[in-house]
């Protein structure tokens, strides 16, 4: 998993986590939120995004073993 912005500040830029087969992005998000309470609000923010492979994915996306998921906090704009 990769993190950016204030999520990288709270969790670190990179984290390797073993998740159950078939876990959704939402499942992983909630696991992370429980493990990192200081990042929970940003992880659950409606403008936060998740990126897998070469595309943004929804919360119901099911992860496969080779996926790297990137959690993007709300953007600042330019």
């Amino acid at each position, binding site marked *: 998993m990769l993190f*950016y*912005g*204030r999520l*990288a500040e709270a969790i670190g830029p990179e984290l390797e986590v073993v998740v159950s087969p078939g876990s959704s992005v939402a499942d992983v998000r909630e696991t992370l939120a429980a493990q990192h309470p200081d990042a929970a609000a940003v992880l659950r923010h409606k403008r936060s995004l998740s*990126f897998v492979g*070469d595309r*943004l994915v929804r919360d119901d996306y099911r992860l496969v073993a080779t996926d790297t998921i*990137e959690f*993007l*906090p*709300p*953007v*600042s*704009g*330019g």
Partner: protein
Amino acid sequence: MSVAVRLEENALCPDKELKALLAQAAGDGAVVCFTGLARPGSKAGEAVCRLILEHHPVLTLRSLQEIAVEAATRFDLSHVHVVHRCGDIAAGEPIVFAGAAALHRRAAFKAADYLMDRLKTEALFWKREVGDAGSQWIEPTQADYADRERWD
């Protein structure tokens, strides 16, 4: 129609960007450009010495390209030229250049306004102000979102 978009890690020189856009716009009637500068103060009035713009290796440039292409299509522009800084930017330095060339001035003015309203809210950066009060993440304001919604 041509669209030139660049993510710039080094100093941005608006003069050079405008010159490049003008060279493209020989058959047009109007060129409007906007240069944004890194402000030396926060909204709370504290001194800011630098801005740090973190970016995504794929999505940031893609977000700039999408905004530029949509501006070109929406306003029937001949050329769009967008350059955005990333990384460590000292207060007072140019942070963004947005230029539009069109047959007529109204389209070029509107396009520059549109480009900036969208860049201010949708360009994929994570921005921190660094100054006397430490380091602080910043996000678009309600006014920024309201400006963006004018175009919906």
